[in-house]
């Protein structure tokens, strides 16, 4: 079991099946890297049957809600989330792309006001498959490739 290479946690959240290389970004988006936060474990490039290679993030002492975890859906649509209580998985869910994306994605339009003024960039998801979002401010749409390069 690849997971055993990093220690199991007693209470908290395990985000599994993150595409390899995106683990750090997941930590940033969920703001798990603060000094006064709980213990955080990142396993990178773990062999995976489903993905070939994957990253895993374990967060001790914190239960992430589905809403919080959905923020990572754009970079890690394959991620699965396990809530751990007393070393056992008590809840399991897949991430889902939310209807609105606030604060984590930058607008790809250099002339969009959100790139020049103090404001949280906001997007409406107009299609999940293929992924397409519309900027709340400039109304321009972005597709998958552009979205990923602006995360």
């Amino acid at each position, binding site marked *: 079991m690849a997971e055993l290479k990093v220690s199991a946690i007693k209470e908290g959240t395990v985000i599994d099946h993150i595409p390899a290389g995106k683990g750090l970004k997941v930590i940033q988006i969920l703001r798990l890297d603060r000094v006064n936060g709980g213990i955080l474990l990142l396993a990178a490039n773990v062999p995976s049957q489903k993905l070939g290679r994957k990253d895993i993030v374990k967060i001790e002492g914190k239960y992430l809600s589905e809403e919080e975890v959905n923020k990572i859906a754009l970079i890690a649509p394959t991620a699965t989330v396990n809530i751990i209580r007393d070393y056992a998985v008590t809840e399991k869910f897949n991430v889902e792309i939310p209807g609105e994306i606030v604060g984590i994605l930058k607008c790809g*339009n250099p*002339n*969009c*006001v*959100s790139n*020049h*003024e*103090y*404001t949280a960039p906001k997007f409406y998801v107009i299609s999940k498959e293929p992924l397409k979002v519309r*900027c*709340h*401010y*400039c*109304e*321009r*749409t972005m597709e998958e490739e552009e979205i990923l390069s602006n995360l």
Partner: protein
Amino acid sequence: MEWKNRDVISIRDFSREDIDFVLETAGRLERELAEKGALRYAEGKILATLFFEPSTRTRLSFESAMHRLGGSVIGFASAASTSVRKGESLRDTIKTVEQYSDVIVLRHPKEGAARLAAEVAEIPVINAGDGSNQHPTQTLLDLYTIKRVFGSIDGLKIGLLGDLKYGRTVHSLSEALAFYDVELYLISPEMLKMPKHIVEELREKGVRIHETSNLESVIGELDVLYATRIQRERFPDEQEYLKVKGSYVVDCRLLEKAKETLKVMHPLPRVDEIHPEVDGTKHALYFRQVFSGVPVRMALLGLTLGVL
């Protein structure tokens, strides 16, 4: 829909009922103004016009509209003489100006500026153009003009001509026309075609669409020809530009092939898309559009101020 304090940012925020209500209100105000000469609905109210970019018609017609409603106007026509030069943010400019006024009209070079301003301000904000994104009051006055002349927008065959790729006017106009039962002819050079996602959106909404680069072949079908300026800077090659430019000049020779009742529209300013010889013909509707700017903007100011 509650109109008092509502922002007017994008045609996307409008339903057909909203649009029809604005057009009806504009019609009522136009008649009242003709009867009484001056109105007093907005007495004691102040409009602030913040124009960070140049404009002739939009700014003057908003100011004229506010005066016609009995209100007064403050503002600036260029950012050069304001604290923006000192680096003040749009956010702070709006927070300041709303202390002095009851409604704000904003034109700004950044796309989304009006949406941001509306979020910051407690008072209503009307978008008078945000970069290449939206110009909703132009669309409303275009629809008003068409409705006044034809009685109804439904059933018309409307040609959109010129730069359909970058032109904000044709984008918001076509979005609004999708609410009506119209047939659209998209006439442009290959490299300035309407973006695919907009064409798809229009088709999904049930609009019948014909795309062509040949104006002469469709001119006889149309009830309205809406011309726009082709911008030279969009072309990498001067010769290409000249070729395209030449094929989209609306002149009397071309109009011989058109229906007697065809109306030619243009948001202005024009360069040479419409020959001045057309001005005196029964086809010319572009100065009528300029006239419509005042009653439509009176309606929007009066409704958002909640004084009508």
